[in-house]
């Protein structure tokens, strides 16, 4: 090879492949797989020290190329003139390459637009602007970040103690409490009515266990093997009752 290639130059295996196709002036619709595979593997071989994760991505495509190459070696049976043409083993790869190329080119357009826009300056944000009383504005990302921050700051023991690990469980707990607010006691089995997926079933059960553990509900079984009933121990609270302010 007359050129030296460094993997960092490329945004991934498809980018590298596109580059090889371009420098060799190859028609993307008729890729000489044997030649391009050899070049591609040659590039990989030059990388002595590779980030394992990155290498993996490049190796996956190497395997694909080798697979296509092997398929190309199998002689195509003569097909009757009116029969459907045999599918080219390269077709899927070509489609992927073209799809990637479209977005790579779009990214280049974006880069130009970014360059243009970076020359336009807006007024610096005024820190004195008071928070208004208008409709509320929160972003989900902001909420997630707030949660991460609060959990990172929290004393470990405390944070762990009130952590039901799965969010689904928390959701089920609330749903169960709501259900029990309407009707209590209720039959254990009735709490699972309308639960269709196994995951939901497990979540509901774990939610119930957690409620029991926290003493927010009680379970009662009058006789062995008999029906289990669930009681709500949470007391109803009106919004103003005991609420600060």
């Amino acid at each position: 090879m007359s050129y030296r290639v460094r993997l960092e130059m490329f945004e991934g295996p498809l980018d590298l492949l596109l580059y090889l196709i371009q420098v060799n002036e190859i028609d993307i619709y008729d890729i000489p797989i044997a030649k391009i595979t050899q070049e591609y593997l040659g590039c990989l071989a030059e990388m002595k020290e590779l980030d394992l994760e990155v290498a993996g991505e490049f190796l996956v495509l190497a395997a694909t190329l080798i697979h296509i190459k092997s398929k190309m070696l199998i002689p195509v049976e003569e097909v009757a003139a009116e029969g459907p043409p045999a599918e080219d083993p390269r077709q899927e790869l070509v489609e992927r390459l073209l799809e990637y190329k479209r977005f790579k080119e779009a990214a280049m357009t974006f880069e130009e637009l970014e360059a243009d826009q970076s020359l336009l300056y807006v007024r610096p944000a005024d820190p004195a602007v008071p928070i208004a009383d208008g409709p509320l504005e929160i972003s989900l990302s902001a909420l997630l970040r707030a949660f991460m921050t609060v959990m990172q700051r929290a004393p470990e023991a405390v944070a762990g103690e009130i952590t039901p690990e799965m969010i689904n469980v928390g959701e089920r707990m609330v749903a169960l409490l709501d259900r029990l607010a309407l009707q209590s006691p209720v039959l254990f089995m009735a709490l699972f009515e309308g639960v269709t997926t196994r995951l939901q079933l497990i979540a509901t059960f774990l939610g119930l266990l957690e409620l029991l553990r926290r003493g927010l509900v009680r379970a009662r079984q009058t006789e062995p093997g008999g029906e289990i009933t669930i009681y709500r121990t949470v007391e109803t609270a009106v919004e103003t009752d005991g609420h600060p302010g």
Partner: protein
Amino acid sequence: MDTQADLSPLGIIEALLFVSDTPLSLERIEAVLDGYSKTEVSRLLADLLEKYRQPDRGIVVSEVAGGYRLTTKPEAAPGIQRLRGSKPARLSRAALETLALIAYKQPITKPEIVAVRGVMVDGVLKTLVERDLVRILGRKPEVGRPILYGTSRAFLEYFGFKDLSELPTLKEIEALAPNAAGKEASHEAVKHIEEAEGVVRPD
């Protein structure tokens, strides 16, 4: 209103654009001005744009992300960079590719992005969400319920688009694009989603 009677509506709009840290939509200006119809506000904005279109002005009114904003002219950039002693940071190529993919294919999941780019995108996606160019739209109703990503209003501002319909047309895949029509349709769908989410305000 008496106090503001001293100042022309043009002046008020100019002041509003000056103090706002996001582009102001026609509707918001109309609501603040009070007593002027949308058509009138629209005409006033056109007047203001015209007034600012003078060669010796250093700032201009431009239309972006469903609203109007004041920015400096590009020719003033070297001076501003000297004043600040720095240039604005740019996105990496990986970030730009991922962003392009999200912009055209939204709503899109992480696995779908990975499938096209052929590389892991966790780090890049995180950066884009952090910079608020990309936002979470919800979850895809399929196994694993992956998170759906889309572009934000900040994205439109960042690249100077009025709305998503202004995205440059993607080059069609020649011979191998039997579903090109479907692609266009999905682009339309995205626009509708955006409108519904209030990111792009229909004029």
